[in-house]
């Protein structure tokens, strides 16, 4: 790994640790409102200041890592699994299945993403899980298309043809050769999507479709900050930096992994 990526890897590790063990990073309760310390600027007592409820911003950003990152990660994983299933089915089950599935994916694409997420969240009820499912639904077409294209591309590969010659069944060939070799493009798409999903999940929280309050979530924190921007800039800045840094770390480290995978595969 190039030296320039070390700090970003460290950031990623740090964020993961924050998401897993937030209490290691701060002794403060992220939900503890302190009426006497509303909108305090950053300082010794509150490193990043306090919000409109006197809650410690640093603690909220630390505790916000989990929902902020989990929704995006969950959405990518769900979309990956569903997308691969749909894509492989479209590629393998014949022309009619392919047409039906491909057109269904077009249907998802044809509805504006946020509107569709909104519909899904409305059906499932607000919360982190619904947000993740909603985002996953929107990103299934991307994964499914890559999966379908990869299966079709790899199906024509000579080593896949050769594998048929050894007497494997079709399913065995897909499992042994097609899917593992499609991992590269999937990984690429997944990391690109993960960054985009973290941004998208913060956007959802921003419009109030994220986890339930008072759960600290970066996008929701930014939404709350809007009203007080004239009084205090810090609640409107630090959570945004948190989102940006998280997405940058995911993207840069992901890009590096992709390049390594690409280099390994011809």
């Amino acid at each position, binding site marked *: 790994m190039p030296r320039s990526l070390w700090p970003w890897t460290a950031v990623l590790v740090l964020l993961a640790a924050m998401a897993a063990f937030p209490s290691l990073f701060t002794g403060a309760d992220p*939900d*503890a409102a302190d009426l006497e310390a509303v909108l305090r600027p950053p300082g010794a007592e509150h490193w990043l200041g306090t919000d409109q*409820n006197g809650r410690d911003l640093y603690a909220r950003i630390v505790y916000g890592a989990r929902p902020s990152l989990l929704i995006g990660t969950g959405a990518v994983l769900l979309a990956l699994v569903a997308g691969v299933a749909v894509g492989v089915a479209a590629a393998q089950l014949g022309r009619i299945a392919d047409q039906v599935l491909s057109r269904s994916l077009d249907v998802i694409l044809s509805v504006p993403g946020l509107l569709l997420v909104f519909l899904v969240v*409305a059906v499932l*009820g607000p919360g982190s899980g619904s947000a993740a499912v909603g985002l996953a639904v929107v990103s299934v077409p991307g994964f499914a298309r890559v999966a379908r294209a990869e299966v079709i591309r790899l199906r024509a590969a000579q080593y896949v043809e050769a594998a048929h010659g050894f007497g494997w069944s079709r399913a065995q060939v897909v499992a042994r050769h097609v899917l593992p070799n499609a991992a590269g493009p999937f990984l690429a798409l997944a990391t690109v999507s993960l960054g985009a999903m973290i941004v998208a999940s913060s956007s959802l929280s921003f419009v*109030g479709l994220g986890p339930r309050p008072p759960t600290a979530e970066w996008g*929701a924190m930014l939404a709350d900050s*809007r009203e007080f*921007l*004239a009084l205090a800039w810090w609640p409107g800045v630090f959570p945004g930096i948190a989102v940006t840094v998280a997405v940058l770390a995911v993207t840069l480290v992901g890009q590096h992994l992709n390049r390594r995978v690409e280099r390994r595969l011809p």
Partner: protein
Amino acid sequence: MGAALRPATTTPAAWAGAVLLLALVAACSPGTAGTAGSGTGDASPRAGGTLRLAVEKEPECLDPHQSPTESARLLTRPIVDSLVYQDPQGKFHPWLAREWKVSADKLTYTFRLREGVTFTDGQRFDAAAVVANLDHVVDPKTKSLLAGSLLAAYRSSKALDPLTAEVTLKRPDSGFLAALAQPNLGIESPITLKGPASKLCAVVVGTGPFKSETGFTSQKGIDYVRNPAYAWAPEGTKSGPVPLDRIEVTVVPDNSARLGALTSGQVDAVTGLAPASVGTLKSTPGFTLHTTRFPGANYSYWPNTEKGPLSDVNVRRALRAGVDWRQIVKNVYFGVYDGAQGPLSASTPGFDGSLAPAYGHDPAEANRLLDQAGWTGRDAAGYRTKDGKRLTLRHMWSDPSVSNLAVQIQAAAKRLGVEIVEENLDGGTFVNRLLAGDYELIDTSFSAPGPDVLRVLFSAENIPTPERGISNNMARYDDPRTEDALKRALDAASQSEQFGVYAEVQRRITEDAAVLPIYSPLSVVAARDGVRDVRFNVDGSPDLSGVWLAS
């Protein structure tokens, strides 16, 4: 406006998204119309100019006959006149009706109409127009979402002669004149009423001081121009020509954007400022805040008195005493809002100020009450338990974000050992749970110009159920003595007798802790200093007809 879109911080639960205002019996409300800062009414109005106003909310449909929203009332008041005018103190004055008589059985109202009034489309205003309007409101085809219920007692009307209209009621309704004074029963051009209802949702034609031919565009706003023929302002208000040439109203839901538009000079005035913005603006030279308290019920938490932990009056009292509501209000709203001193806003006629001590902060008493109620255990998280069950209260929202107020209350309740769970629900689930009584707390305010709002909020007839549909007794309060008092209030012979009965109701409610009142909402217009004579209507909405621009 999608409820879920508005990161509301000061609004009550969104199903009542617009603060509902029901016209009740005639009430003289003193109203605390007041203006902070400078620049009111001491100079003589200067004619001309365009007022650019940014408002917070917009109506789904402009037509006040159809729409229930506060914003429809605000946006149509410049266009439509009413038969009678109710001043901010609650007194009635002639407007389109020069005078009126009420029969002894209180079932027939006869209105003598003003002569020479024309609609801005050139039609003449006459008794037939009055009949057409009232009939239009109650016609099921109109699908009125509020105005129809204002006329619930209406039987029929007829034109005795071109300038005399007679209205017959099914039963006596002392609130009838107040209802007529509302923009929701404003008089629209009869020709337009015959056209498609959908057209009325954009363009309303009346006899008012302003007209808007292009009408209302959602998410954008509405532009008015002065009605040059206007010469029938209500008696008792400032007479003379309307000063403004034009009003341009823009809908800007985002609080900070609205403030930015004002401070950057993009608009002259804004409504519905968030308290934080009020604080900012106070310290900004060149701007004036015009405020009045909304009359009616305070912004409150409504406990479910029917089932769950809050059906125990001791728990309700403990919650009332154990949370320092006033301190929270002061902190959260930067001292802009006043803490509640009873179920009603202090500006409401019939408000009983003697109950204020019952709403004081007394944590020791609160803990004693909770112990007495049997919530003596403590779990690992520090919450009180009874029989192993945690004292958990579910607070329902249909808004996507929880107000800072709720966060503070949640924290204060936790110190008491009470867990408040904030549940953000979609509109459909919210309604289902409301009807089923499946909640512990709901929040909303309810503005109204008199104490009759108490019947709307506390009569057992108004408990929302699946059969009855949505109704406003969200505390699900069912007390025979209160019920009896509410009946006596209807039959009261004088206003003082009526107020006496309502004081009893307020006492009962306070004793039972059937509501946890929090603060009195403010109607705010913030404007640059050059905007003069900003006044408020009886319902707390800004009155634009007298506004003029000094610069």
